[in-house]
């Protein structure tokens, strides 16, 4: 087991002018579960493949433990990887698949069998050890891919969207299993996903990437409570945070007919007349009359305990979509007009030009 360090690691694909991964600086502690998350094309898979040695590193370094592995071929890095499409060896049985790395490493037959059996028990794969991958279901194949990684007892686990081919229910189930398994084994893990829910539920820490540039690294709580910029604010959380531009007025921010009070410290950070404001759906108060931002309700999604109200409003003649969490039993219905105000302690303010956070500390964290 070891830590992982990206030191200004850069990957520039030939023929491209913009790096796929741009000077990535990232430290993963020993035994930590780090999730790389971002929209497709953000460089998260490339970063992982750089760590695996499957992608060349054009600039910077990658370290596993104290060892510089920048120019070390994948076979000598002592890592195990779970691929998105599992990449099982189709001509080998489950047991042979799981034991392949050990066989290559010259581990004796007896020890190989013991370790494969151990891992198979852990993953409920014992009855399938003699089967070929084609005789397995998607979930079982996924577990074999996991098993192949576990048997190795590597320094680092790399997982490239291992759940994206499972159906929704199995995905939620496997998510928990992988997270608890990782904690039990205590192996440093780098996990790539495009799904922010997976990131929030599984990771010790999350690294958000966009266009090859690292945006923010932190615990799920940090990212949710204090996103450093508009991108992270909009990416983390489901449904997404409401983000729109409002005018700065005396004593706060103009919020329809109401004024949302914001720290003087926060507004002191900018001289602009407008700021981008972010409010999470659960941090909005809904009233049928009074002061606030008028919202026309388009649709209400019923989720049982809660509901999500989707509506639109107009600010300075521009249409703004609004999502609000409402009570599941008692909520306005489509076509209604409501007035919303933000919870004063849960307003995120961002610079409209740069997109950077103005509120210095996480308000919720106090």
């Amino acid at each position: 087991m070891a830590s992982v360090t990206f030191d200004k690691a850069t990957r520039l694909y030939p023929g491209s002018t913009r790096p796929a991964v741009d000077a990535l600086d990232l430290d993963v502690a020993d035994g930590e579960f780090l999730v790389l998350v971002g929209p497709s094309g953000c460089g998260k898979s490339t970063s992982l493949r750089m760590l695996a040695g499957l992608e060349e590193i054009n600039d910077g370094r990658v370290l596993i433990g104290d060892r510089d592995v920048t120019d070390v071929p994948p076979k000598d890095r002592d890592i195990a990887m779970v691929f998105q499409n599992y990449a099982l060896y189709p001509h080998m049985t489950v047991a042979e698949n799981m034991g392949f790395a050990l066989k290559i490493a010259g581990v004796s037959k007896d020890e190989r069998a013991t370790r494969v059996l151990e891992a198979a028990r852990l993953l409920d794969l014992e009855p399938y050890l003699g089967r070929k991958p084609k005789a397995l279901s998607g979930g079982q194949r996924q577990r074999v891919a996991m098993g192949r990684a576990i048997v190795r007892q590597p320094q680092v686990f790399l997982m490239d969207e291992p759940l994206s081919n499972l159906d929704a229910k199995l995905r939620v189930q496997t998510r928990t299993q992988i997270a608890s398994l990782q904690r039990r084994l205590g192996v440093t893990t780098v996990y790539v996903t495009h799904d922010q829910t997976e990131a929030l539920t599984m990771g010790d820490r999350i690294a958000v990437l966009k266009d090859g540039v690292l945006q923010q690294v932190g615990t799920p709580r940090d990212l949710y409570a204090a996103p450093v910029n508009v991108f992270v604010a909009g990416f983390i959380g489901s449904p997404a945070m409401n983000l729109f531009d409002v005018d700065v007025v005396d004593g706060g921010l103009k919020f329809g007919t109401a004024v949302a009070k914001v720290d003087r410290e926060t507004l002191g950070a900018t001289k602009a007349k407008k700021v981008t404001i972010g409010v999470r759906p659960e941090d909005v108060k809904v009233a049928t009359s009074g002061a606030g931002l008028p919202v026309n309700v388009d649709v209400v999604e019923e989720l049982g305990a809660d509901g999500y109200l989707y509506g639109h409003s107009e600010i300075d003649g521009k249409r703004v979509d609004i999502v609000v969490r409402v009570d599941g039993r008692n909520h306005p219905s489509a076509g209604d007009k409501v007035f919303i105000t933000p919870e004063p302690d849960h307003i995120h303010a961002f610079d409209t030009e740069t997109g950077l956070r103005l509120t210095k500390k996480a308000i919720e964290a106090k």
Partner: protein
Amino acid sequence: MTSTPVAAPIDTDVARPGTTKTARVKKRLTSRGATIVSLIIAVLWTLPTFGLFISSFRPEEEIKGNGWWTIFANPGFTLDNYSEVLLSSSASSPQLGEYFVNSLAIAIPATIFPLVLAAMAAYAFAWIKFRGSGALFVFIFALQIVPLQLALIPLLQIFSGILQPFQESVGDALNIPTSNYLQIWIAHTIFALPLAIFLLHNFISEIPGEVIEAARVDGASHGQVFLRIIIPLAIPALASFAIFQFLWVWNDLLVALIFSGGTSEAAPLTQRLAELTGSRGQEWQRLTAAAFVSLVVPLIVFFSLQRYFVRGLLAGSTKG
């Protein structure tokens, strides 16, 4: 898991079965008319072979006098043709069995050599990145354009100028007999390589990249990836190429005739069969039986390897 703000009804345009182009083509190709047409083609195609088979059991005068379709009007059954082909021998040419061994001694190595070389080259072209690999690949396949006959004389010069003296000196030193097998093997291997590399490359490059990456992460070197992953997965392609190459070498007369040195020592079956017709071809009735004698081995090869022509060997490797 993001939820869409407004669940707009999606316009589903599901194609009805039988309306797509492929479905139409498939339907036409499996119709009764198409089956009858293909049956007729198959019968027409096998008819000459069938006629040859009948002829091979007819006496010489009958074969030379009338056609095989008159078998019922001119009945006559004999195994003379087969006995002449199989058993006749002379001072200069031994019995057919010896040529059979020669043919096998030529065809088996001349199949294995290009197969091994081409599989390794195909793996390198498909999965090892190096400068100019694309251009080199195109260049190798372009060699296919050069007609085999064009290379015969230069090749013979090289063999007699360099290979033969070397072979003889080695043979003298080790005190073993040298024959001309080596020349035939090399010639067949050279001629087979461009197409073999091309065919195997196409198959090997279709193996999912993730599987090879998984093996590399699992600690396998290029050699181990090749032996443990590529070879087992490429068996259908290897088997089909092996069949083609074996049949080609087995049936070849030209290359063997030129490089065998004209002696019975290394001459294959085809060369002997050509001689059997006599110096002026007057004994051509023997060819009927000879054709079926030489057909036996290709048939065995085909039927024993054809079970590797199975699809779906890659099933279950990745999703889907």
